């Protein structure tokens, strides 16, 4: 007897994507498409159970259209005879009047659909599949107490599966719905479908407890998002875990030391070599720049916008003014005096104002050298 489990979590339908600016709406659609991809994949591969380990929605109060979309996909799976387990996460936690309190989702009833939103362990016995699912929902944004302790395998069921949303104590004490690896290990469950973390990750080597990660990247730092897990359980241990890519966009993280480039154009040229419209470029400009090396962030973004899906630019460069540089601008002359005045301020100011002073130096020098605003 084999059990095929499609594991998805942290879909964050309707997510607020402030970092994507004008692309936010488009990427919200990508999130929908990727979730649909996950549903299609599960159907195509003949999954027995489809599990969402929390945060299907980005908030407890998703819009009607998002709810309709989610429910349509749930129904699609159920119509194909696939069991569906949905638990609430800390983002779409159950609250009064929320989507898991009273909505089309809560009103939907089907013997193959189980919605678990309370912070207590609930059991769903699927005799047909010889499967016992133990899950708990989330009702708080942060919950220091674990609702996942005291798990014990039930020998009457071939497959014991835990579905939880929280942080595993990999490093120190986790801050949200703590999941203790020791509890998981001791339980002798066949598989733990975990949610909360957006990157695909095995909680512990040798333990079949996985974070599927988000099917589409939600935040710009999730390099291992965009997946679902297809889990096959049989007599063999450990379970067979297949990471299936369903996401549409990925992250390209780049750090550029501007000091290594002669000109602004060279930097742009370098960045264009990896261009890909499915990549979100997380670009960090570092290093020291000369007073004449003006980096216009808007220009960089504009120049790369056609090559990447989106460009996030962090400018951490610092103005390089060596003694030699300073010597080349005599203080008896205007530019030298101007630089000195601002450098004196820079010494007084905290680091927060440094960037502004650097840019003011660059602007003033450029203007005094005949540049335009």
């Amino acid at each position, binding site marked *: 007897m084999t059990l095929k489990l499609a594991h998805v979590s942290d879909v964050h339908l309707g997510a607020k994507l402030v970092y994507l600016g004008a692309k936010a709406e488009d990427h919200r659609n990508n999130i929908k498409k990727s979730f649909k991809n996950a549903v299609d994949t599960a159907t195509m591969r003949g999954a027995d159970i489809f599990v969402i380990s929390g945060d299907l929605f980005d908030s407890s109060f998703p819009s009607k259209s998002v709810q309709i979309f989610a429910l349509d996909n749930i129904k699609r799976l159920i119509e194909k005879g696939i069991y569906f387990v949905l638990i609430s996460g800390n983002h779409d936690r159950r609250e009064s009047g929320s989507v898991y309190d009273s909505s089309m989702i809560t009103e939907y009833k089907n013997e193959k659909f189980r919605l678990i939103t309370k912070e207590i362990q609930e059991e769903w016995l699927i005799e047909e599949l010889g499967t016992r699912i133990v899950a708990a929902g989330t009702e708080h944004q942060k919950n220091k107490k674990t609702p996942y302790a005291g798990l014990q395998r039930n020998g009457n069921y071939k497959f014991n599966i835990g579905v939880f949303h929280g942080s595993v104590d990999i490093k120190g004490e986790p801050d949200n719905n703590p999941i203790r690896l020791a509890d998981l290990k001791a339980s002798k469950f066949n598989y733990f479908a975990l949610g909360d973390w957006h990157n695909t990750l095995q909680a512990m080597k040798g333990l079949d407890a996985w974070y599927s990660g988000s099917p589409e990247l939600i935040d710009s730092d999730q390099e291992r998002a965009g997946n679902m897990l297809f889990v096959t359980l049989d007599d063999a241990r450990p379970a067979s875990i297949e990471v299936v890519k369903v996401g549409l966009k990925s992250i390209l993280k780049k750090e550029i030391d501007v000091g290594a480039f002669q000109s602004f154009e060279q930097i742009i040229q370098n960045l264009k070599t990896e261009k890909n419209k499915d990549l979100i470029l997380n670009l960090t400009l570092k290093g020291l720049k000369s007073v004449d090396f003006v980096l216009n962030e808007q220009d960089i973004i504009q120049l790369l916008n056609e090559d990447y899906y989106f460009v996030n630019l962090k400018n951490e460069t610092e103005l390089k003014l060596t003694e030699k540089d300073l010597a080349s601008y005599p203080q008896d002359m205007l530019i030298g005096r101007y630089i000195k*005045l601002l450098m004196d301020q820079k010494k007084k100011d905290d680091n927060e104002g440094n960037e502004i002073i650097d840019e003011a130096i660059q602007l003033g020098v450029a203007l005094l050298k005949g540049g335009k605003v």
Partner: protein
Amino acid sequence: MTFKKLILQNYKKFTNKEIYFNSGINVILGDNEAGKSTISEALLDALYADPRTQNKSVLGRIKSWKTDENPKIELIFEHNANEFSIIKDFAKKEAKLTNIDSGKSITNLEDITDSIAEVVGLATREVYQSTAFISHDDIARIATTDKSFVNALQNIATEGPEDVSLQGILITLNDELKKMRLGMDRHANNPGPLRLSENRIKEIKAEILQKSDQVKKVAESAQLGTSADKELAEVEEKIKEIEQLLENYSINEKAQEKLKSLDAQIKQIEWTLVAYEDLQRKKTHMTSDLEMYSQYKKFDAEKASLELNRLLDLRKLASEELNRISIIDSKDDFSPTKDVFLKTLLFVGLLAIAGVSYLIFRQWLLTAVVLVLGAIIALLFSKLIGKSAHDAINSQREQNKQNVDQWKFKIQSATEGIKKILDDFRVEDPSGFFTNKARYGLLNENLRQVDSQISGLLLKASINDIKQEQINLLQAKKEIEINTLTNEVKKSKITSHEYLSFSRELDKLYNKQKDLQKQLTVSHVRVSDSEVDTDYITRLEEELETNNLNLLYWRKKEKIYQLAYDNIKQALKETAKTASAVVESEIEKDLKQLTAGRYQKVRMGDDFSLTVYSPEKESWVNPIDNLSSGTIDQIYLLARLGFLKAITKNNGVPIICDDAFVTFDLNRRGELMGIFKLLAERYQILLFTLYPEYEEWGSLYKIS
């Protein structure tokens, strides 16, 4: 420092060129495109250019017009009685500074640059250009307005190209700041980005607040709905329970009432049946009694009674008549009683007449007469009556005899009739007849009464109907006891006090139910009416963030521009302050001579503006308003060289004039020559010109 020789290879138009310079004024004369500017540029490149540069604009500017070779520049100059050679080889990307006298060289560009900066006293090409390199534009810019003169003076202190206007920069920065801040202090129809962003942020925040409030309200309504729904379910459950209880009570009450009524009816029927039986028994007795008087029923007792009475009366009458007749017969004449009576009556009558006569006549005699007469008349009358009465008695006796017979017959007939009747009714005497007749009548009457009682009892129904009714009632009772008074009904038996209390509670619950239903409706209406598209809020929040970033960007830009504005202004002030003493002293050295003693003192302001002291007017005056244009040019040059001296600490940098005075008229040129000759004592001057008029100013070098 003195330039001695410049050697150019593959530098712009020159493939190989050597130019020699002397101390003092050097006039480098050449036509347009002869290469004058190229030489002046090459001098600066020799000092400051980086032969390793990849900068296309630099390489493009210096590249050979004739070959593909990269240029090489060598400048030989004298400094502190030593001769040096500096080579910038763009082909080899090398630089070399050699002390020709000592033969020592350095090739590290940074070291070379440092050495040159030290020797020249001007750190960069730009500084050289803005101070010791006088172009045509520098002079042209002076023009004749105060503003342009100040601009020209300020420009000395800048290291940018000649056309940089400090005032222009400050105005530009200020304009930019104004544009950014438009609408910040007061209303503007087209506000700047700061106000726009702030306004939009305010708008979005308000909208988010409103929408979020709406979401909150919807959630609250939904929550209210949910709790109202739950409470309603509880209330309805409770209502159902109490209604059931009260209904059971009512059922029980009604059933008990019905049972009571049924019992009463059953009792009534039982009583009726008992009464009926009694009456029936009575009736049987009466009927049996009546049998004894069957003759009365057989014969017409009434008629017989009437006949009997008649016969009895007749017999009685006949008997009485016979008696009377017998009495009359027993008397012979008329009766003495009657006679005595009549005689007494006559006597009384006579006494009465005697009394009346005495009263009338008052004489006894007359009275006696009357009395005698009356007695005679009475006597006569008495005799007459006696006779007729005797006759009548005789006749009567005859008649009586006939009557006695008749009456005797009648008596006989009556006796026979009576006997017959008595025989018919089997009684011995009439009194028996009448007694029995009375008894028969009484019995019949009683029987009628019993019948009447029975029909009154049965009320037109038959006894069977009543018995059936009794059965029905008993069945109905049983039915109630079994089907209506169920265990549940019996269990929920409550007292009437409790019933009232429950009724009151039920009323309260009904009100509560109404309230909750209303709440639920309100909640549903609110939820459906005010449902907010949370996607829209998400978009608003994103837009808010974008605008926040935008505002941050503009605030940062505002700070940057403000810093630039303030510090350029401050730098200008400080630069002017630092240089003013040297500049003023440099100008004053020659001012008296230049102005034929009219002006001797000069003062430089914070903004590089100059004023000269007029002893005539005893005041500080603006040179633009009071001096000739030629003198103004000279003062400008003095100021510029004064500034050069101030920043180079009197290193004697070669002054390059690139057709600076091309448009000057003869007078102006003449005045200028005077100052140049003075300057040539302190500086090497390279005067690049198109005009042969300058030939005699110094050592001539012609380029073709």
